[in-house]
């Protein structure tokens, strides 16, 4: 009974890690790096929480969160694809900007420095007596769809070509700039859904550090999965499972001193799985390099 509980509890932390990773895989497969996932999580968590608080309409909150991600994607896309700016700098800037905006909004709207009031959340569905968020299944479906798109469709092949050998892709008639731009927007939009999940599903309110480094774990999951959305499901789920197990061990062992050791389990465990099963990762060849037409 208890292993079954852990298996279900692993789903909660999985969702944002998977959404962030799948989005980033699409973006990076096209040749653009966006390390601003953390910032997108924060911004979308914020906007969706605000909408949920003031309208009580969860669907609208989700849509606004998605749109927030998309807008950020447009900005990062313009900077890194069309203006050929430094993609890392843009991403870091985004993370800092998001944190600042979060705090300022909290002060402006609720005169508080740390967190919003509780907001309405996504209603759970009950499976075998255990409440599960519908976003969990949507997320897994998105990951599978992303894999199908990237590896089984023509459009996916074109997208990957932009990240591997843009010159050859262009010779084939692919509009590199446009594909990269759209991939960046799509990736950021998915990360936006991850942000929505954090505030309007998981926590039920916005707090200024709600993402708590999950955007960076999602980035690590991209490399873990070797830029493959299907493996990303496994990566995120394994991390979630070890996370839930670590909490279980912390609670039942009742040894405060071991807690910090247990906290390392998700990282070590995922690393071990990557080392044993995933093998050597291969980075898209043209990743992070702005495309300059000759």
């Amino acid at each position: 009974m208890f292993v079954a509980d852990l298996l279900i509890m692993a789903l909660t932390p999985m969702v944002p890690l998977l959404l962030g990773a799948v989005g980033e895989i699409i973006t990076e497969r096209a040749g653009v790096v966006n390390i601003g996932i953390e910032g997108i999580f924060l911004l979308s968590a914020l906007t969706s929480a605000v909408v949920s608080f003031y309208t009580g309409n969860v669907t609208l909150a989700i849509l606004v969160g998605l749109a927030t991600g998309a807008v950020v994607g447009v900005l990062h896309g313009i900077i890194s694809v069309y203006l050929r700016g430094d993609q890392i700098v843009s991403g870091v800037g985004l993370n800092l900007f998001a944190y600042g905006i979060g705090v300022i909004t909290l002060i402006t709207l609720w005169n508080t420095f740390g967190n919003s009031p509780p907001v309405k959340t996504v209603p759970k569905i009950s499976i075998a007596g255990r409440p599960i968020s519908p976003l969990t299944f949507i997320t897994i479906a998105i990951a599978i769809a992303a894999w199908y798109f990237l590896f089984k469709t023509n459009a996916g092949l074109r997208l990957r070509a932009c990240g591997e050998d843009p010159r050859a892709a262009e010779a084939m008639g692919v509009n590199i700039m446009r594909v990269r731009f759209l991939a960046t927007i799509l990736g950021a939009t998915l990360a936006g859904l991850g942000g929505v999940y954090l505030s309007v599903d998981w926590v039920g309110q916005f707090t200024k550090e709600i993402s708590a480094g999950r955007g960076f774990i999602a980035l690590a999951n991209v490399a873990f999965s070797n830029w493959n959305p299907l493996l990303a499901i496994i990566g995120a789920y394994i991390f979630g499972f070890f996370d839930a197990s670590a909490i279980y061990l912390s609670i039942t062992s009742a040894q405060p001193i071991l807690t910090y050791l247990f906290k390392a389990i998700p990282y070590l465990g995922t690393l071990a799985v990557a080392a044993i099963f995933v093998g050597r990762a291969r980075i898209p060849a043209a990743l992070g390099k702005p495309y300059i037409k000759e």
Partner: protein
Amino acid sequence: MLKAQIGKIVVIAIVLLIIGVAVGYFILKPVTTPTPTVAKKVEVAVLFDVGGRGDLSFNDMAWLGAERASKELGVEVSFLTPKSLADMKPLLEQLSKSKKYDLLVLVGFLWTTPLNETADKFPDQKFALIDATTGIVRPNEVDILFREQECASLIGVIASGMAYELGGNTIAALAGMDIPPLWKFHIGYLFGAKYFEAKTGKKVNFLWVYTGTFTDPATGKQYTMQLLEQGAKGVYGLAGATHLGTFEAVKAWETERGEKVSAIGQDASQEWIDPYHIPLSGAKRVDVAVYTAIEMVVKGTWKEGIITLGLKEGGVGIWDLDGVRWFAEQAAEAGRLAEGLTPDKAVEIVKGLREKYIKSYVWDLVNELKKMIVEGKIAFKTPMTHDEYVKIIEELKKGNLDAALAKGSVS
């Protein structure tokens, strides 16, 4: 031609005018600024720990105390939050060097090391360290500590009693980091549970967990869900913003599983956040500590060393309904109170919960214990090392209540 020349002259005239005004301003400026005022206002800087304001408990309470000092004692207060652990020491040195402030109030355990490395270099700068101690007596430093064991022990008794009313016998606590103030909470809370066991003969199952963070409510919710899964009926939140996730979890537990469970807040009165599930909060009057430190500087009653605040001094305790109302009113003013709630209604709900789940025999136990503490018949140990802390906890688990006491006996 003429037109162009007039234009030129106008432009030159404007430029000259601007230069004239600017020069005039700088010449006249020293005269127009007011000369030093008769009595210089006392200036105080309050330095939060990295969590910063907004936890609705620890740091916000510090802010409250400083605000009260600025109103009642007429001091000038600035607030600063370091961005990260690495920024703490440079910030402290910079402020000490500036000689701008009569007192630097350092809020939280994390300032201990930066202060230790800074205090001796600036003998003229006064420091007040809140909720921690460097263990060194310096003429320019005062450390204000709380006897958290005292309030946590009362909460332990109440939580145990409540667990039985909620149809179980497990109580839990969600703690932040494994640091000295939390050790004291742990000792007190476990003591309370064991005291309840000893006096009533009813078994209490005790869970305590460190999340390792004070800022991540998502993690807090995950931990709390598992504590509830282990049968906890009440979860004591001792993790700053992290335990906001506890409040969310107990609410979710009732809607999703149909079982009523409760959460207990700490530091500030947190009942207003969800009065249906938070029947009480432990009080840790960080505001009183900050105010006390500032008062010492303003009134010239500075005394170096360590000051501890406990039940007797009103430094710790359990928030009464007036406290609950005050915090609910603050929340209502800021538009943070949940829809359909008013301060009155929140107090009414909390009152109802307390009447329903805290039986009179439990209050009797609490009052008896409180009396012994306030009268000084018993006093708790404060562990100096982690080993000592673990040893006390192990003894307590065996039911050896006196192992937690530095003075007196309850057996």
